[in-house]
């Protein structure tokens, strides 16, 4: 760390490896994280396609799958166990390598130092290390697809005893589950290094005039997310260490005595599978907010820019984000209402779960208030920001039902939960990432993205996600259980047409993402050149060329005179005041 502090004054590297591979530059590392997430999200999406296809056409031959896993999908037909394997890798990829990396480590790494007027992160070498550790973690996870007995089948939550007894428990539970545990442990280390950097940078590297309350809300969101990561990933790391020991060293942290697995008595004594659930969800619930809070930041920012109005209730939003961060550590038990916990505990966990909806609701209303009466500019970025508000509120409403133990006992094992968390955490966070991409792309790559393609992408995605995840709520209410690989000759047969509809919607919505991918790479090379400040935004990243020079400000040291969101009052033909504008008049309330 001390060495790091000295290395901060680094000069621009010239060699390819130091410039693009093992780069210390936060902008390159941010892009590396971003592309890691893009690769993961497309792989995860293809896995979800396979899952959806298997659900409605269980006997269909999937080309190439037989070669990838002769045991899991003989002849390309997915076996029930392989269905669970695909589900596990889909969940793990999406939660860890997409929702945790891109919004925070991707955009945060890229934009945070520039937005607060710093040349780089506080500890560039640790920053580089955090990316490469995360990359190793991804390699370990993806390699489970290629090991002999396939990926683990115990889901992204890896509940013991299934996850802790080894290959006896089913395909993928040997080497696959070990690789999973190592991957997640590595991911924890990468995230902790990242969080350390984010906090130190935000506290210590702000430029002159950049008081905490002048920071863009994106920076607040990244700071709060980093604090959540710092506190929660260490606990998940502890859980992974215990799991690895149980699996490989014969300990009994999570394995009870008298455990029969496939007819064989296990030589373990006295552990508790519930211990894993507590440790996992103590991490797992803050993780939900680690995924979504950076989205809150981006959306607050973007809505203000494209409404040409100051953010409504800046201080209130900051307070609400802090409250959400704090409360997220008190609600983990709501994932465990079915674990046999005392009804009193269930009640205790239910109360903060319901309370946490209050700051989330306040923030949502403030977004609407920000947009209300503004001169809206319907760019693709703005559409995704508005879409975020929509899917977040829709998904969040489901949470009100699930927060109550009496309802959750029925709904927990059904598609209602799948619909809820995909909407509120998955889709909303992805919409935040899309908004971030369309917003910062000009800065990151020096070119503009195609708006027409962007709008097509938005509308198919927006309608598509409602078609996929809204029906899940209803079939969940009907009692359709999740995690089942198929419903052949089942009492759930009457609901299969709904499943078919969702699968077709998923295929179309997924295909639309290739429009985005095309737009991304095509615009990177062929898009029109981006001006310095294409969105007429006020924050510091728009005062530097697109893309910014190596040290961000070209040797200058920005001084901040204004709040981050001074829009609306016209002076000298401009309806906004740059944060660095010494002469600009502050906007009137």
């Amino acid at each position, binding site marked *: *760390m*001390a060495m*790091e*502090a*000295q290395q901060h004054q680094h000069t621009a590297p010239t060699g390819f490896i130091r410039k693009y591979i093992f780069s210390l530059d936060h902008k390159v590392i941010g892009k590396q994280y971003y592309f890691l997430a893009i690769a993961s999200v497309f792989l995860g999406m293809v896995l979800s396609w396979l899952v959806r296809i298997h659900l409605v056409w269980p006997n269909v031959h999937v080309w190439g799958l037989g070669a990838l896993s002769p045991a899991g999908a003989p002849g390309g037909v997915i076996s029930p166990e392989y269905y669970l394997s695909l589900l596990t890798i889909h969940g793990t990829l999406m939660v860890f390598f997409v929702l945790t990396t891109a919004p925070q480590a991707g955009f945060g790494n890229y934009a945070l130092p520039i937005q*607060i*007027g710093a040349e780089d992160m*506080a*500890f560039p070498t640790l920053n580089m290390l955090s990316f490469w550790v995360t990359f190793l973690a991804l390699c370990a996870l993806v390699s489970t697809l290629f090991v002999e007995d396939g990926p683990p089948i115990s889901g992204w939550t890896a509940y013991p005893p299934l996850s802790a007894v080894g290959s006896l428990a089913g395909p993928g539970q040997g080497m696959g589950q070990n690789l999973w545990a190592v991957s997640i442990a590595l991911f924890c280390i990468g995230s*902790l290094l990242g*969080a350390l950097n984010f*906090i*130190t940078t*935000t*506290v*210590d*590297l*702000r*430029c*002159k*005039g*950049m*008081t*905490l309350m*002048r920071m863009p809300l994106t920076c607040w969101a990244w700071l709060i997310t980093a604090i959540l990561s*710092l*506190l*929660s990933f*260490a*606990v998940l790391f*502890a859980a992974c*260490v*215990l799991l690895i*020991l149980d699996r490989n*060293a*014969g*300990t*009994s*942290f999570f394995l009870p*005595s*008298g455990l029969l697995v496939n007819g064989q008595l296990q030589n373990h*004594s006295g*552990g*508790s599978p519930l211990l894993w659930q*507590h*440790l996992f969800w*103590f991490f797992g619930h803050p993780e939900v907010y680690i995924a979504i809070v950076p989205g809150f930041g981006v959306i607050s920012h973007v809505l203000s820019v494209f409404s040409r109005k*100051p953010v409504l209730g*800046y*201080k209130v939003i900051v307070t609400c984000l802090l409250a959400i961060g704090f409360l997220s550590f008190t609600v983990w038990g709501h994932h465990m209402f079915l674990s046999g916990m005392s009804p009193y505990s269930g009640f205790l966990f239910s109360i903060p779960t319901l309370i946490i909806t209050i700051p989330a609701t306040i923030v949502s209303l403030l977004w609407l208030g920000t947009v209300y009466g503004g001169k809206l500019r319907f760019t693709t970025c703005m559409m995704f920001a508005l879409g975020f508000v929509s899917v977040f509120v829709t998904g969040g409403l489901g949470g009100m039902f699930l927060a109550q133990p009496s309802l959750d006992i029925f709904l927990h094992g059904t598609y209602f939960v799948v619909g809820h968390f995909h909407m509120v955490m998955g889709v909303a966070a992805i919409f935040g990432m899309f908004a971030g991409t369309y917003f910062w792309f000009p800065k990151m790559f020096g070119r503009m993205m195609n708006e027409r393609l962007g709008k097509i992408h938005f509308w198919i995605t927006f309608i598509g996600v409602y078609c996929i995840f809204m029906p899940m709520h209803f079939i969940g209410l009907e009692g359709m259980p999740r995690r089942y690989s198929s419903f052949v000759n089942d009492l759930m047969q009457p609901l299969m047409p709904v499943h078919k509809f969702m699968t077709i919607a998923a295929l179309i919505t997924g295909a639309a993402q290739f429009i985005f991918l095309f737009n991304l790479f095509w615009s990177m090379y062929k898009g029109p050149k981006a001006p310095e400040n294409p969105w007429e935004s006020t924050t510091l990243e728009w005062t530097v060329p697109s893309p910014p020079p190596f040290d961000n400000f070209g040797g200058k*040291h920005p*001084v*901040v*005179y204004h*709040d981050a*969101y*001074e829009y609306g009052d016209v002076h000298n033909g401009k309806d906004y005041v740059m944060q660095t504008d*010494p002469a600009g*008049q*502050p906007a009137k309330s």
Partner: protein
Amino acid sequence: MATLSPPVTAHVPQTGKHGGSSLPPVYGGGGDGGRGDGSLDDGSRLRRARLGLAVAIVPIVMLFVAFTSAYIVRQGLPTLDEKNHTYVRDWTPVTLPVALLLVNTGLLLLSSIAAELARRQITRQAALAPVRSIPGVSLGPGKGFPWLGITVVLGAGFLTGQWIAWRLLAERGFYLATSASSSFVYLLTATHAVHLMGGLFVLLYAATVSLLRKPVEARRIVVDVTAWYWHFMFLLWVYIFALVWFVR
């Protein structure tokens, strides 16, 4: 330890929104402790490194909080007795080699003291470095007592002592998977040892760069931060020892 940046006060009426002001504040916004030309002075570097350390200690604390909660929960957990179908408590306390562990604690305490003396020594050297560079000024021999080396040796002594303690535990029949209590003893001590080894490598690095005669200001930051980390490691060990001793 690390201090956060002072709150900013603007000496003008607040005309901007959200608590900001329309004119530049008198003081820097964040940790802008630089000299205004972008290069960091050593004080700022030290402050940043200390802040980084303070933040880095948080997840280490959380790691041990997680282990501790697992320890306490596991200890109170009843186990189903197969024969009688009754719940029994199966926690068998580990017979710890207390005398040896006390010696180890002493070694680590001395090591921590040596680290503190090394820290103070190098702080003094760094403060005197500008004076020393004046021609004709002599402040006696530049090299002081090798406190850093002593810290490393005592730290290595502690780790060796822990290794011997493990061997003694094994001789008494307590292996990693023998019982829940022994699993936790090995887990806690090994995790602490791994963290200590990290510090040891940094100290070795600091000792090496001191041989290479790097500028004393640069070495000072390494030594300072590692010394604080070392004190934390000592306190952590005392905590672990107390936990496995008192919560048997």
